[in-house]
């Protein structure tokens, strides 16, 4: 007993106090407490006898993580992709059907009728706010980028006449670096989770992994500001990917009816303060984000379905579609007002690929093999992109992990992007006559008066505008040399940029690379066949863009629909589908998709659809963690506090077993209780003694648990006095009385299927006598992965 007490170390207690604890208790629970200290790590004797070679593991009653392993020293390894981080936890998707829940259901069954209506209202709000955020980003980027390019253009024009263009170069690079510095600083120092496109993070969230801070208001603010600054800073990035993350954060915030960051509770939507409900709204938010970004409502729903949601039902589809439509509509109406023709609702999403005229740009049967070939090229280039980015990201994780270094790196990339662009424009000989103001920022440089530098339309512009001009500029606007150089340079720039500590997406850069080589391909096709095939460069640019994007992110269904909707052309559906399919097949042969790769590099315990195929020989007994820290139905407060505050066992779910032992093997499983529930119980001091003395004025309701969600206070913040430590807690009322269990012999795929389909967090492994043998959690399942040499096992690591 004293042994246990001294082992425990948590902030509020001193060692001397712990010694005083050894005095026998007066309230008659001493005997129970004394016995309770022992069997925390339950090991059924039956299983122990069967697995004789394991017995040494169970001998130590305080067996902690480090103790029960043959290699005792915690050793360090460099970061690699074969790790699972302890930082990530699961979300609780399993509904806890405890007595409180049943009571609430019985008491106000009328309230459940309005729940469905409230869901629709929330979806509408998600759509509206996502659309507004998209407008805000769009307008601000346009304004700021316009300002920047105007200043630089004025400077270049001035120095072209008088000499001293190197100053213009310096100005451009300095402006870029300065803007990127601000954008990168807020990401690196304020909210690192806002870095990147956010799609991997949302994918993990919807898979059931709790990424810290991912759906906070602070993240949204940093994300929005960060993306504006990085696009204005001239990096090779787009603002579409972050829209998806923003939509998800908005959804998570609205559906809760409060903001924990701002400490405001609007007292609405309290019913939805659970992980399960929040997950559904987050997928709606992601869809609304896509729909605002590309003007593709159906594409948004399919994106949520394909990339995001690991859990789906039919009712959700229609609701998510509603949110997507509202989001596009909001964006359209606000942008139409901004552009001075109010109530014209035809202005589509953030990126408008423009209309492709079907009659002028139809396709014939001969072109199908060519498109497929483009798909192959896209797959290979995409795989190259991912492989290069993999090495770079690995290097970044290992060496560039300090925030100031990250900011410095982003600044350097900004400056180099400007420098490379300037050199390309400077050395380009491709001059094209000015026609009206089709070109937003025409740079003359060394061209004759009345002409502009064609390379400058590609580099001296925001990437979105460059994509559109590659799609739609009439044939002959770019010469092949320009396109080739641009593709090459932009490929490396985009690859270098993705993974920086700035919030930015990879969609637009990929489209831009693809559009450039696609256009080049189209031009050279009609050149090689000497006009036999009239290949419209714009059409081939579109196919190239699809192929490149498909090769990098490996999306199929949703990307096809997004491209179709963004170009407003259903006719191209078939060729785009073929191109994306080929690109995915070819790309998957080499490396996996960019998002999956980044999820792996972040050591996230991500559960794929299926268990690895060769894993049937593994049983639950080999997969599970054991021994398990169990609680009794009526447990001593001190014990609970000690378990919760023990640094080594930061478990989240505790099986609850019978409290009275009659015989040696009767401690059967009775339920499961979560750490969060225990903390709420401790906070409200729901102790048996207090209840019997009628110190507790009211019974605890489900609302108390919801109010604490999602940020439950840490155990250190709860003060439990010495007297209280000797009280007892009755967990029967609060635990989940029917946790899912599997027998020890269940195979890994079976366990996996159950776990994955139900979105579980804990799966208790029991023996024939319903005694707890082990516990399967997400990390136990996610560590098996099919590698090059068969089944691999990932290690757990502290990151």
């Amino acid at each position, binding site marked *: 007993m004293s042994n246990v007490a001294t082992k425990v170390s948590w902030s509020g207690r001193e060692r001397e106090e712990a010694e005083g604890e050894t005095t026998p208790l007066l309230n008659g629970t001493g005997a129970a407490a004394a016995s309770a200290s022992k069997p925390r790590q339950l090991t059924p004797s039956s299983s122990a006898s069967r697995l004789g070679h394991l017995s040494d593991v169970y001998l130590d009653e305080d067996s902690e993580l480090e103790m029960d392993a043959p290699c005792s020293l915690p050793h360090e*390894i460099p970061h690699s992709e074969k790790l699972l981080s302890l930082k990530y936890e699961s979300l609780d998707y399993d509904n806890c059907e405890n007595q409180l829940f049943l009571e609430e259901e019985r008491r106000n069954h009328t309230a459940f009728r309005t729940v469905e209506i409230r869901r629709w209202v929330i979806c509408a709000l998600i759509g509206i706010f996502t659309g507004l955020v998209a407008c805000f980003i769009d307008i601000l980027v346009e304004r700021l980028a316009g300002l920047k390019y105007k200043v630089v253009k004025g400077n270049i024009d001035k120095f072209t006449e008088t000499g001293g263009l190197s100053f213009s170069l310096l100005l451009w690079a300095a402006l870029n670096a300065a803007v990127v510095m601000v954008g990168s600083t807020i990401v690196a120092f304020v909210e690192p989770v806002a870095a990147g496109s956010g799609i991997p993070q949302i994918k993990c969230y919807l898979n059931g992994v709790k990424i810290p801070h991912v759906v906070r208001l602070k993240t949204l603010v940093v994300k929005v500001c960060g993306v504006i600054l990085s696009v204005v800073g001239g990096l090779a990035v787009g603002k579409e990917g972050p829209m998806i993350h923003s939509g998800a954060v908005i959804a998570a915030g609205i559906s809760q009816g409060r903001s924990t960051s701002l400490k405001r509770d609007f007292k609405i939507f309290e019913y939805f303060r659970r992980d399960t409900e929040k997950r559904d709204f987050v997928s709606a938010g992601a869809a609304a984000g896509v729909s605002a970004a590309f003007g593709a409502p159906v594409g948004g729903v399919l994106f949520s379905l394909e990339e995001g949601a690991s859990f789906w039902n039919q009712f959700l589809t229609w609701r998510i579609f509603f949110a997507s439509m509202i989001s596009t509509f909001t964006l359209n109406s606000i942008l139409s007002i901004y552009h001075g023709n109010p109530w014209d609702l035809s202005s589509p999403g953030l990126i408008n690929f423009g209309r492709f005229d079907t009659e002028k740009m139809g396709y014939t049967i001969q072109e199908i093999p060519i498109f497929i070939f483009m798909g192959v090229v896209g797959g290979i280039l995409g795989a190259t992109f991912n492989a290069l980015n993999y090495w770079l990201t690995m290097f970044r994780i290992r*060496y560039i992990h300090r925030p100031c*270094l990250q900011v410095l790196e982003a600044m350097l990339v900004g400056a180099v992007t400007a420098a490379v662009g300037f050199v390309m424009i400077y050395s380009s000989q491709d001059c094209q006559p000015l026609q009206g103001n089709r070109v937003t920022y025409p740079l003359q440089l060394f061209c004759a008066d009345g002409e502009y530098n064609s390379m400058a339309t590609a580099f001296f512009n925001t990437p979105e505008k460059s994509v559109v001009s590659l799609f739609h500029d009439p044939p002959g606007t770019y010469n092949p040399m320009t396109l080739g150089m641009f593709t090459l340079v932009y490929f490396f720039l985009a690859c270098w940029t993705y993974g920086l500590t700035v919030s930015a997406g990879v969609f637009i850069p990929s489209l831009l690379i693809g559009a450039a080589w696609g256009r080049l391909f189209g031009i050279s096709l009609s050149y090689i066949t000497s006009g036999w095939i009239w290949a419209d460069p714009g059409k081939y640019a579109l196919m190239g863009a699809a192929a490149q994007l498909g090769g990098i992110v490996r999306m199929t269904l949703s990307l096809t629909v997004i491209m179709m909707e963004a170009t407003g052309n259903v006719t191209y559906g078939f060729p785009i589908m073929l191109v994306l399919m080929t690109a995915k097949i070819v790309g998957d042969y080499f490396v996996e998709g960019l998002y999956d790769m980044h999820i792996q590099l972040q050591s996230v315990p991500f559960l794929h659809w299926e268990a690895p195929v060769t894993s049937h020989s593994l049983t639950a007994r080999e997969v599970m963690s054991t021994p398990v820290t169990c609680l009794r139905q009526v447990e001593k407060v001190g014990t609970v506090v000690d378990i919760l505050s023990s640094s080594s066992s930061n478990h989240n779910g505790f099986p609850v077993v019978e409290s009275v032992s009659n015989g040696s093997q009767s401690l059967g499983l009775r339920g499961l209780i979560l750490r969060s529930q225990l903390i709420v119980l401790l906070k409200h001091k729901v102790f048996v003694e207090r209840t019997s003395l009628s110190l507790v004025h009211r019974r605890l309701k489900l609302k108390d648990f919801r109010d604490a969600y999602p940020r439950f206070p840490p155990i250190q913040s709860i003060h439990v006095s010495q007297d209280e430590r000797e009280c007892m807690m009755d967990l029967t009322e609060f635990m989940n009385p029917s946790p899912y269990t599997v027998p020890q012999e269940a195979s890994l795929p079976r366990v996996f299927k159950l776990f994955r389909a139900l979105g579980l967090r804990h799966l208790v492994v029991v023996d024939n006598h319903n005694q707890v043998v082990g516990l399967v959690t997400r990390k136990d399942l996610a560590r098996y992965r099919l590698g090059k040499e068969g089944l691999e096992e990932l290690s757990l690591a502290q990151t």
Partner: protein
Amino acid sequence: MGPATVLLLPGVLLGLCFGDSLFPSRHFVFQSGQEGRALGGWRLPLSLELLEEAEDLSLLGSESLRDLLELEPECRELLAAFTNSSVKLTGCLVRSARPVRLCQNCYRQFREINDQLENITRAVGNTSESSKCAKSLLMSDRLQIVVILSKFFNDTWEKANCANCLKNNSEGLSNSTVMFLALFNASLTCFEHNLQEQEGSLVNNYTQVCKNCSVTYKNLNALYKRMQESKQQHDAEEQSHLCIDVEDAMNITRRLWSRTFNCSVPFSDTVSVAAVSSFILFLPVIFYLSSFLHSKQKKRILILPKRIQSTTSLVNIQEKCH
């Protein structure tokens, strides 16, 4: 003349017969007219001229036939006026095609043709007489040549963006255009003047022109840019052009200036640009090298899971321990 009359005869005769007939119902006459036209159709087009020739036959019933085929006199007048002005406008447009002087030369004619068209259409709803004109001139056949022509003129005008260099109700050139054209002429005169001087010297470079005319040229360029900017501010549309006259004049001048005379020689400081850019490009190399050498590599602390050590497992757990 002979065979033509013969050809005409059946129709006329038909009309004559029906005119004479006991039941001169409108219905029948109409049918006969149809037939006559159809009959004429497969031989030769039954032209109005021929009908006019046939007029002097002064046969009974020719009146009603001509009424049917002929335009009303007012309408004919309107058509003639439209013909006139379209001839004038077409001539003007083609004459001022190169160098483009469309807007300055033809705006009067364009206004005229618009007036004519308005004369025809305006009356639609006014009196029955003139509405008949609009109907017969504008929408009584498939081709609708008047509509095609006026549409063509309007489209051309719009494409040339002439409204941009005219005053509001196109009664004359706008102030900025007049100013621009004056400057344009001044710079052309300057070029000419200097080239003539140069011819004597027999040196085939244009330094003289470049030196002497640069002020005028720059003024012209600046004015053009100002006009462009004000145009852009005026309407925020994507495609906004100045009027074609101004654009073309500027293009000609610019081409002369920078291509023929080779006057705009930009300062290229390749050396300094190369130096600065290679400096910037070199920075990341230093950055990555130094962070590779000096930054402490981030290590992950392995956590060993609580797990049954199974010997039968095909997964090699021991691997983690060394």
